């Protein structure tokens, strides 16, 4: 079991309210991702759940019992840190066994769990090495191994992939998702990378200045963002926002249209523009186009083989079914 309920939880550091009171319910077995820009309070929220920080107000209930003032070790949660936080003076074996040693688990049980974790994480041949002798990906796996052996009620991940290079990150992302499918344990994952959030989460919490902007499945957030912040944060490249007469013609203060929802043509279209910088990804090409009718820059997506160059004239047609409308406060108009 691993249900975590936060009610009216807030955190104040000195005079700064980092997290205004918020409510959140994390279901058992869910993969929940906290995403937001740097300084939005997502790591603080995770540390409050872990017990590494004390809440200023509110309560945290884990599996039905109040854990608000329970010390970290007694909450039954395991955490994987951004810096891996391995014990440099211990071998991989001792690192993974450390939480079991602290729990005074019988020796044979320790060995069984250690071997199982090493097997799952492909660490068997590295057990006698020190963390300093491992690559970044291997260190991250040791950190995950140390969390697994505790068989926790929930795993907490604090930006675990941000120290890895891009290729490794994609691999580890899959491994963590795979692990979640296999263990079916609640996972709470903090990241500033919306791609990680979209690809891994069952449910995403978008945070901004300590406030929950929206909670929902990745596709819910993508399809119907509740405000301009979520709309701009989720999706890559980010959504184009248009204000002024064009927005007014749709009865809105701001309209948003994603790059993939604008058709590109060299013949004709609603808008005409000039191609600026283009980014070729192979499968797709993103053009930054200065649109004459709107006097602003839009990002649009085209196929990978489109032959357009800097300075070429281009015609754009927005797909109105995918137009998002927002009022002057930035809230969605349904």
């Amino acid at each position, binding site marked *: 079991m691993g249900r975590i309920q936060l009610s009216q939880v807030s955190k104040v550091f000195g005079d700064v309210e980092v997290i205004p009171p918020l409510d959140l319910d994390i279901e058992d077995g869910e993969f929940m991702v906290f995403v937001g820009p740097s300084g939005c309070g997502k790591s603080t929220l995770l540390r409050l759940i*872990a017990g*590494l920080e004390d809440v200023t107000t509110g309560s945290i209930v884990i599996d039905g019992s109040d854990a608000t003032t329970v*010390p*970290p*070790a007694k909450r039954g*949660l*395991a*955490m994987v*840190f*951004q*810096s891996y*936080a*391995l*014990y*440099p*003076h211990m071998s991989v074996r001792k690192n993974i066994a*450390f*939480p079991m040693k*602290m*729990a005074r688990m019988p020796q044979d049980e320790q060995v069984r769990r250690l071997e199982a974790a090493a097997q799952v994480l492909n660490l068997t041949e590295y057990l006698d090495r020190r963390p300093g002798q491992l690559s970044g990906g291997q260190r991250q796996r040791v950190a995950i191994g*140390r969390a697994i052996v*505790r068989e926790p009620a929930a795993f907490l991940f604090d930006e675990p992939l941000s120290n890895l290079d891009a290729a490794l990150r994609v691999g580890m992302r899959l491994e963590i998702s795979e692990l979640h499918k296999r263990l079916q344990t609640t996972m709470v994952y903090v990241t500033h990378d919306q791609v990680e959030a979209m690809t891994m989460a069952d449910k995403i919490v978008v945070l901004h200045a300590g406030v929950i902007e929206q909670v929902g499945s990745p596709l819910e957030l993508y399809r119907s963002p509740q405000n301009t912040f979520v709309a701009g944060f989720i999706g890559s490249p980010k959504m184009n926002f248009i204000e002024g007469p064009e927005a007014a013609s749709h009865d809105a203060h701001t309209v948003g249209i994603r790059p993939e929802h604008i058709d590109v043509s060299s013949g004709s279209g609603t808008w005409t523009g000039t191609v600026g910088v283009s980014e070729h990804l192979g499968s797709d090409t993103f053009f930054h186009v200065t649109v004459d009718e709107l006097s602003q820059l839009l990002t649009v997506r085209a196929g990978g083989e489109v032959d357009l160059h800097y300075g070429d004239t281009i015609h754009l047609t927005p797909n109105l079914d995918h137009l998002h409308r927002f009022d002057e406060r930035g809230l969605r108009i349904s």
Partner: protein
Amino acid sequence: MARSVKTSRKAVTTLVAGTLGLLMFFPVLWIVILSFKSEGDAIKAPLAVLFSTDWTTESYGAVQARSDYLKHFSNSVVISFGSTFLGLLVAIPAAWAMAFVPGKRTKDVLMWMLSTKMLPPVGVLVPIYLIFRDLGILDSRVGLVFVLMMINLPIIIWMLFTYFREIPGEILEAARMDGASLREEIIHVLTPMAIPGIASTVLLNIILAWNEAFWTLNLTSAKAAPLTAFIASYSSPEGLFYAKLSAASVMAIAPILILGWFSQKQLVRGLTFGAVK
């Protein structure tokens, strides 16, 4: 890119550095030379002393015959090691608290501790002497261990504080998440990671305590007198006996010099720790 340096410039720099090094080391060398001369030779003009080839160990014999070297030596060992280890027991938890759970006034507390080192010791000599007299711990090892622990405590805490701050807080948090109690966290994680820092703190403080001469001379007379008092006893009213004084000095500084020599790598690392990351 490495800068290119002319050979002539290198030679001059080496010469200047070598001369400076020799100048600094010379007094110690001079003491060693004098200690192997007879009293008659020792008071001759310096050049005559340097080039005389009569070497003798009579001063060492005379010193051992006159005073009990081993007793002073064992007092020095007990006082310097005792005060350092007692200091560690107090300093590790104190430095832990200040490094990992700093409060609003942690910096002030650290400065206050350091400020106690700015006070001239003689300023508190009379009260401490009277307290020691009333407690009956004048000329006792216990008293000296205590007073040297107290005067070196600010340095021990400062050094440990600096080392502890280099240890990432996340590792201690990981230990806490892994179920370690505060005691287990300090024993299994913090201390092993800080061993290099603790070792250099221990070494430096043993050396400081070994060489401490103000309190050891003022608070002891015979029973607990360490090697500093042993040297001092050779600048006596009977006159200066250079050779014997030198022999006594060599015997007093040799143990600590040897300890320092073997642990210099550790010491240098400790003293420059955190200077360059």
